[in-house]
C-alpha cells in the first residue's frame, strides 16, 4: 500500500526536473523534451488522483493530454526544423528573432 502523497511527490519531482531542464538547457530539442517531462509528471498526478477518488475521468483526461502532447510534438518539431533551416543552429541563445 503506497500512500497517494508518494505518487504526488514523484509527479512533483518529475515536474520540477522538467522546469529545471526548461531553464538550464540551451538546446532547443532538449528544452522541448523537458516540456514532455512536465506533461508526464502532470499525467501521473491525474492517474493517482483518479485512483484516490475512484473516478475514471482522470484516466480519460490523461488520454486527452497525450493527444495534445502528440500534436504539440509534431508541430513543435516542425517549427524546430524550420528554425534550423534558417538559422543553422539549435542553440536558443542565438535564436533571438521571431521572424523565419
Amino acid at each position, binding site marked *: *500500500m*503506497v*500512500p*497517494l*502523497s*508518494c*505518487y504526488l*511527490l*514523484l509527479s*512533483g*519531482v*518529475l515536474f*520540477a*526536473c*522538467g*522546469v*529545471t*531542464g526548461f*531553464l*538550464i*538547457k*540551451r*538546446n532547443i*530539442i*532538449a528544452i*522541448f*523534451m*523537458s516540456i514532455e*517531462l512536465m506533461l*508526464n509528471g502532470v*499525467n*501521473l498526478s491525474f*492517474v*493517482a488522483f483518479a*485512483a484516490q477518488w*475512484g473516478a*475514471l*475521468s482522470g*484516466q*480519460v483526461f*490523461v*488520454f*486527452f493530454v*497525450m*493527444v495534445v*502532447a*502528440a*500534436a504539440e*510534438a*509534431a*508541430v513543435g*518539431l*516542425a*517549427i*524546430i*526544423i524550420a528554425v534550423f533551416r534558417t538559422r543553422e543552429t*539549435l*542553440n536558443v*541563445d542565438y535564436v533571438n528573432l521571431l521572424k*523565419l
Partner: protein
Amino acid sequence: MLHLLLFLVFGFACVAGAVNLLVQRHPINSALSLVLVMGSLAGEYLLLGAEFVAAIQVIVYAGAIMVLFVFVIMLLNAGEEERTPGSRVALVLGLPGMLIGSVLVAWLLLDRSPTRAVAAGALKGDPQTIGWLLFHNYLLPFEVTSILVLIAIMGAVVLASQPRMDASTKKEG
C-alpha cells in the same frame, strides 16, 4: 510490500532518467533517458490499475513521440550543447529554484495532505471501461481531438516543407 518495492524501483528509474536528461549534453542521450522515464511511468500506471493508460503511454509516448524526437535529432545532426553566458545564468537560477520547489512540494505533500493509501490496481482502468467512457460521456471532446490531430498534421507538413518563395527564386537565380 511488493507494491511498495515496485513503486520504489519504478520511481527511482523515473527520477534517475529525469536527472540524466538534465545532466547529459548530447540530445540523443537526453532522448533515450526520456524513454526510460516514460517506460517506468508506464509501470507506475500499471501499479495504479490504469492498464489502458499504461499501454498508451508505451505505444504513443515511448514509441511514436520519442521516435519523432530521435528522428529530428538525427535529421538535424544535433551535436553537443555549447555553453553560453546565458546558460550559466540559467544554471545559477534554475537549480536552486528546482530544489526549493521540490522541498516545498515534498513538505506540503508528506506533512499536510490528508490522503489515504491506495491498494495496487484498486481502480480498474481497462480498455473496455475507458473506451465506453470515451464514446459516451466524452464523445464530443474525443471527436474534437481528431480535428486537433488533423490540424497538427497539416501544420507540421506546412511548417516543415521548404518555403515555396525560396525555391522559386533559387530556380530563377
